[in-house]
């Protein structure tokens, strides 16, 4: 059980939002934590050589940060029972200014029988959506 009363929720209701500031340090930290050392996430010369506009964030970093909006709402990371996203656009992370990813969570659907709620997450960088169909099912 959680502190959230499912009967009080409405589809479309906003449950929270957060802006995440990604810097090159964030990418190096995520590379170390995840073991994904693809150089497109920290080397400009390498990113350019493979035809990218610059260093980009790991899609999994964006995915991992975005779900925190749902986690903070429910207060328990262990209640996220199903979480999926599509990676639609890259997040380019400038060496000096970084990148800001804005995540907004809304109630997508409510399942009273199973006491679960689907949170739909929108994630955008410079007003361009970077995740598609980002949905987290929370067990209440």
């Amino acid at each position: 059980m959680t502190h959230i009363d499912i009967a009080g929720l409405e589809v479309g209701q906003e449950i929270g939002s957060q802006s995440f500031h990604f810097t090159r340090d964030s990418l190096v930290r995520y590379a170390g934590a995840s073991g994904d050392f693809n150089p497109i996430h920290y080397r400009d010369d390498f990113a350019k050589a493979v035809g990218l506009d610059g260093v980009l964030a790991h899609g999994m970093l964006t995915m991992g940060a975005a779900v925190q909006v749902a986690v903070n709402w429910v207060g328990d990371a262990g209640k996220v029972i199903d979480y999926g996203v599509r990676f639609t656009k890259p997040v380019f992370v400038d060496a000096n200014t970084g990148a800001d990813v804005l995540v907004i969570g809304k109630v997508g659907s409510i399942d009273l029988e199973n006491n679960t709620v689907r949170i739909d997450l929108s994630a955008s960088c410079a007003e361009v959506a970077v995740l598609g169909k980002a949905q987290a099912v929370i067990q209440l």
Partner: protein
Amino acid sequence: MVNPNVQGKKYPETAPYLVGREKVREFANAVFSTNPINHDLFAAQAAGYPDLVAPPTFAVLIQERSLHTVIADPEADIDFSRVVHGDQRFIHKRPIVAWDELTSVLEVDSVKSLGAHSMITFKTEIFDRNKNLVCTAISTLVVRGE
């Protein structure tokens, strides 16, 4: 092009991965988690868990180990330098917690071609030491054509 014949192919179980407390904290910091049960043992235990709870995307570490076996498989013929992550999903039977010892079995769910590109979908089942299913990770990679 990815070899369509690997559709349905199952890869051998990976070696056990022991989930460390500090790895959970390190990963939680990397994904901007401030949820106490990812960081604080007492908070996790007060919430009813045996140890620190890993963030919802932590299973990617285990999935990666399985993926490496496929990338290294000459039959699959995947050019990793042309790979882009298309989508990702984690379905949890229970959360991963510190001191779990996890193994995984990967199956190639589908191989599709989309013009010059290939799309390959993997299903990785992650098990604990008692061989109970903890998480199913589903990942689609897009391999860009020449």
